């Protein structure tokens, strides 16, 4: 079964939702009669168990890392604790990580630039330099979690959700790994926000307007995907639209994903749609997401 992804773990750590179950709680049907045990048990298999807490080892590891690494660690750790993933017993040598961030380690880059310009760089900080490297986040994550498959740090490209999902499909289809963790992570940065303010007001770049509309969030979303061996296996299956196929269908329910400065915003919408799909289990139609890039091109994603 090619070009499909089976979700086996989901982790969320954002300023609004510190764990995956808090987002699920926000989406739950209001009336208890509407909620079926079966639906919720399906969701429970994908998110960390009730009472989950990050281990003391994880807490101690992240104490010396950038805030943006904290978020990624928390989200990945939750996804790895999902029952659905644990039951698959996948070797960490056959696991890949695809990490995507809009602003990456912006604070460390700015800290390094400060130290570089101060005193002509005599005290330029090697630690800030190492952390300013975009892939340092993913490097810390693979070291902590012991992941030995391909580890790719991707930039916020035109389709921050569909892009890394399509890459995850390729990694699995070409047998580079048996499971792929896709992690979106972002942090706020005062200077970045100020630059965005200038981009909107002086350069007429509306895609950065979000920064002016209210307080900025931060956080991370992590999802673990495996191959779909059979459509009858159940669970949540994602279908990132192959580029070649013309999109002609009418979406019965669609969730627009507009281009935003934070990749994690779009990933959070995806997580909400996945949970909605499970919670609305008696609704036969898939959920379709449409992601529009800043240049207007669209990518489609079906949650089957």
């Amino acid at each position, binding site marked *: 079964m*090619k*070009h499909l992804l089976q979700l086996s773990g989901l982790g969320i750590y954002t300023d609004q939702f510190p764990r995956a179950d808090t987002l699920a709680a926000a989406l739950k049907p209001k009336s208890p009669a509407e909620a079926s045990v079966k639906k919720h048990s399906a969701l429970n298999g994908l998110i960390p168990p009730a009472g989950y807490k990050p281990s003391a080892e994880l807490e101690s590891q992240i104490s010396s890392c950038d805030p943006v690494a904290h978020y990624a660690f928390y989200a990945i750790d939750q996804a790895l604790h999902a029952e659905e993933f644990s039951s698959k017993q996948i070797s960490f040598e056959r696991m890949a*990580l695809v990490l995507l961030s809009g602003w*990456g380690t912006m604070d460390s*880059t*700015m800290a*390094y*630039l400060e130290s*570089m*310009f101060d005193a*002509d*760089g*005599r005290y*330029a*900080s*090697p630690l800030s*330099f*190492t952390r*300013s*490297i*975009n*892939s*340092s986040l*993913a*490097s*810390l994550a*693979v*070291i902590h*979690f*012991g992941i*030995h*498959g*391909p*580890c*790719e*740090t*991707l*930039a*916020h*490209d*035109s389709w921050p959700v569909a*892009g890394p999902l*399509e*890459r995850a499909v*390729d*990694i699995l*289809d*070409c*047998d*580079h790994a048996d499971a792929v963790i896709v992690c979106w992570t972002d942090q706020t940065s005062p200077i970045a926000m*100020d*630059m965005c303010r*200038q*981009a909107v007001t*002086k*350069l007429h770049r509306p895609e950065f307007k979000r920064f002016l509309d209210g307080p900025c969030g931060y956080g991370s979303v992590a999802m673990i995907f495996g191959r779909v061996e059979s459509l009858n296996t159940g669970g949540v299956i994602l279908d990132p639209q192959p*580029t*070649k196929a013309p999109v002609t269908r009418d979406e019965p329910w669609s969730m627009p994903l507009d281009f935003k400065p934070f990749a994690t915003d779009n990933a959070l919408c995806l997580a909400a749609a996945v949970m909605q799909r499970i919670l609305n289990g008696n609704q036969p139609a898939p959920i379709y997401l449409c992601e529009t890039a800043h*240049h207007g*091109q669209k990518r489609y994603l079906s949650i089957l």
Partner: protein
Amino acid sequence: MGNIPPFEPIAVTGLGMATAQGLSPQESWQGITSAREVLRPWEGDLPQELSHIKVAQCPPLPRPWDLPPRLWNTLARTQQLVCICADEALSAANLPDNIPHRFSHKNRRAATPQISPVGCFLATTVCGMDRTEGYYAAYRRNPDAAPLDCLRRLQPYEILSLLTRRHHLTGPSYLNLTTCVGSAMAIGAACDAIHCGKIDVALAGGVDALCRLLISGFNSLRVVAADGCRPFDRDRPGITIGEGAALLVLESHEHARQRNAKPLGFIRGFAAACDAWHVTKPDPEGKFAGLAISRAIASAGLAPEQIDYLNAHGTGTRDNDAMEARTIRRVFGDEFEKLPPTSSTKRLTGHTFAAAGAIEAAICLQALAHGVLPPNAGSIEPDPECNLPLVTQAVTRPIQTAVSCNFAFGGNNTALVFSRGENS
């Protein structure tokens, strides 16, 4: 290693390359094979303590005719470099008219189902940092008076956007930031997308440009060789920082055959694996570096003894070169005679970080096409502990297969396998 799925050969039908040796594949290859010394202090703004460091800087970049000076002069240097390489690669590939790109007659038409979209797979590390540095220096003095043009280059995806818009590349786009293995991963990702049937043609490679942050940052880590690197030398002092870009036009073998394209060579295998060991140092045993090389060779359906040339990562640091030599001996066999002729070309091109994988892929393809092995320049007395069959000067020798290895911060390891013919 288990069963390794076979890797369908991918044809390389176009090549663009800009290095300190020259701004075309021909100029670069000529400089590399003649081991031309090009290292010199950077022309950019550096404090006194860093101004003596020799780097590998590209010659002045000519402005493409279609980019007006008011745009060209505000582009980040990485964007300028990829523009030059993309023009060269796509022009050399001579793609048919049903593929939209700026050299085709149908380039202004919107993509339709009849037109094959071209994917764009890029890698960079510094992105638009040369412009961001200028912006930030001014921002510190007065935030409202900082030059806003620099702000336009802040986001990494700007590099990709420029290329996809200019060349009408409407297929999947991908920007990898995994430092020194970035462009090897971008080439691997492009091959995967072709194998999965998403596209038939892709432009893939990497770019990085010199900036103050890069020179100052690596100097702060104390790994820079001020007078140039000496890969696998007994007294190797560290890396040479460089800039450059290389882009490859990749096609499914079937697509290339149908249009009677003449491939420069073929990509036959790719693999990546991660040490998960240390953020800046490689695992000294190179277990996962070896795994990446072995898997790539196996996916090509080859045995290690069938590899005719190895382009090593060979940065010239003590840690990298020791680990790499140990890994090569483990993969290819501990007997000296069994090891493939090996060279690192980083003294000649500098360590171009995210561009290194693509530049070294281009070097392997030219070595296969010309039947010449490029030299391991810079090494005066080879380190007996490394004990590799280094190519001391360019050697004319017909070869059929080559491997390029790249290793990066965070213990990321990649290997690409190339062949002269589809079944070599």
